[in-house]
């Protein structure tokens, strides 16, 4: 633990004892040409907690997730997983270390059934898929994992449907189900509620609450009701930088956050 950068100590002592930091960033920065999308962001996702990242459009939230998952390389700074630096690793290596992510724009296997989407996701947990002899369908543990993931995301009855024929909301649920099927310990969720109806939204919030106990969750979300009801820690980003970080109460009371949101034409409703 001595290797933790100094920035952490403050927040670590604040949190309840026993909650371990799983994924963290240290001054993470990403430039796109002259634009700085993410600027010196340091934050931590802890086991058993939901850490929500909010901010106006263009604040760099999705870029942050892409840096954490390895979809994008960082320009500067570090990403640490359980204290080990993973900056610069390709996305598939990071995924194999237990970091699962979902996408803001639905990113699924459209020609496959919902079940096969999840089965293929579960298959990623095999040490290697360089297996040529037995039919994939005879790996019963993978079939069960796929069924369980579908059920958790509320798609138990829709497994046989081709993904392209699912409704938009169901595709969003499938997105989450696939992420769960890989059995990650860290969940990076990029707007999981976007495009979901009220009912689906409510059950997804219930699912996330349930997942919180056994996962470290980093959540980017625009639905403020959901964010404030779920998050243990909130980080507010504006123009790529962290404006404020703290408990929901602290964020709600923050003058700087109110200013930023009012300035951006948005308000935090509770």
């Amino acid at each position, binding site marked *: 633990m001595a290797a933790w950068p100094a920035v952490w100590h403050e927040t670590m002592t604040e949190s309840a004892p026993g909650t371990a930091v799983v994924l963290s960033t240290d001054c993470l920065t990403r430039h796109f040409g002259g634009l700085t999308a993410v600027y010196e962001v340091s934050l931590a996702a802890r086991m058993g907690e939901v850490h929500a990242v909010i901010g106006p459009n263009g604040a760099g939230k999705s870029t942050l997730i892409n840096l954490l*998952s390895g979809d994008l390389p960082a320009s500067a700074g570090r990403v640490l997983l359980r204290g080990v630096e993973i900056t610069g690793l390709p996305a598939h290596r990071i995924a194999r270390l237990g970091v699962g992510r979902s996408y803001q724009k639905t990113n699924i296997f459209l020609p496959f059934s919902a079940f096969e989407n999840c089965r293929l996701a579960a298959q990623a947990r095999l040490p290697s898929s360089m297996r040529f002899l037995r039919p994939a369908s005879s790996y019963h543990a993978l079939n069960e994992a796929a069924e369980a993931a579908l059920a958790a995301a509320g798609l138990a009855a829709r497994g046989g449907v081709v993904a392209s024929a699912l409704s938009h909301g169901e595709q969003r649920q499938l997105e989450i189900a696939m992420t769960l099927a*890989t059995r990650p310990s860290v969940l990076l969720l990029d707007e999981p509620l976007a495009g979901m109806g009220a009912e689906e939204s409510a059950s997804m919030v219930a699912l996330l609450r349930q997942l919180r106990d056994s996962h470290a969750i980093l959540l980017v979300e625009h639905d403020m009701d959901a964010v404030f009801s779920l998050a243990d820690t909130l980080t507010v980003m504006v123009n790529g930088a962290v404006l404020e970080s703290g408990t929901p109460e602290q964020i709600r009371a923050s003058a700087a956050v109110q200013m930023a949101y009012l300035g951006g034409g948005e308000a935090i409703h509770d």
Partner: protein
Amino acid sequence: MSATRGNGWTGVLALALIALVLAFVPLVAEKFYVQFFAKILIMAIFAMSLDLLLGYTGLVSFGHAAFYGVAGYALALITPQYQAANFWTSFPLAIAVSALLAFAIGFVVVRMQGIYFIMVTLAFAQMLFFLFYDTKIGGGNDGIYIDLRPVARIGDWQPFNLDNFAHVYYLALALFVLVFLLLRMVLASPFGRVIAGIKANEHRMQSLGYGTFWYKLACFVLAGATAGVAGYLAAVQFGVVNPEMLGWHLSGAVMMMVILGGMGTLTGPVLGATVWMLLELWFQDITKHWHLLMGAFIVLTAILLPNGLIGLYGSLARRLARNHD
């Protein structure tokens, strides 16, 4: 689940039936037609191997003849002068040469996307073409004659004699069935699901934890080795290898067979190769401008049957099923 399994078994049953019928060809047909059917079987193996890349993984390889031709050259070059090669060593060796070449080329091209993949596979194949065309390694433009076919002797016993055209046919038939069943098994395996996933959405495969590079490379090697089986058989059947076996004309023709029959299935390329060869024979009989007729046929199929001939079978089956209901 049970429905797909049922279809799988009817597929195997259909294959067994077709193989049984094909087994009688040498008993009833003249030499010309036996050799013609053997050529169809060889091209069917070749087309199935390309479909692994084209239809299953979504890699448009435009230099697939390289792996076919190089296996033929491997046999020609390891056949000693005035002597016959040993089938049991030359066959695996030729396939190993194709696989090795596919590994080397694949290691470079599999990183590339779209149009660059097409261009660079073509470029590699053409480099190989000119290597054999312009130098004396493989007899230049004329190629190499294999006067003595490989001998398949085990001790004093000779299970088959490749100087006999019927035996060559039976070898092609046996290898065709073997390749079909082998690829069918591989495509149903976890590996097969991974390459299908790469075709559908490679980015998502990576974020799920699949290092797609190695899977694409493995598929490229498997496709190259399988093309090598066809190339070896072709060299045995025709008794000659020449640079055309590596050229882009052949790469293009086999791609047409796959597309004509239907990509992403195993029966599609087999059907495509069969129809292609039959049409070629027929059109050549009618006119020396048979390429024109072939071209017109391809244009028509592309317009009328976007899923290839196998798609026609699918829509017929659906129509029949609807009438039954």
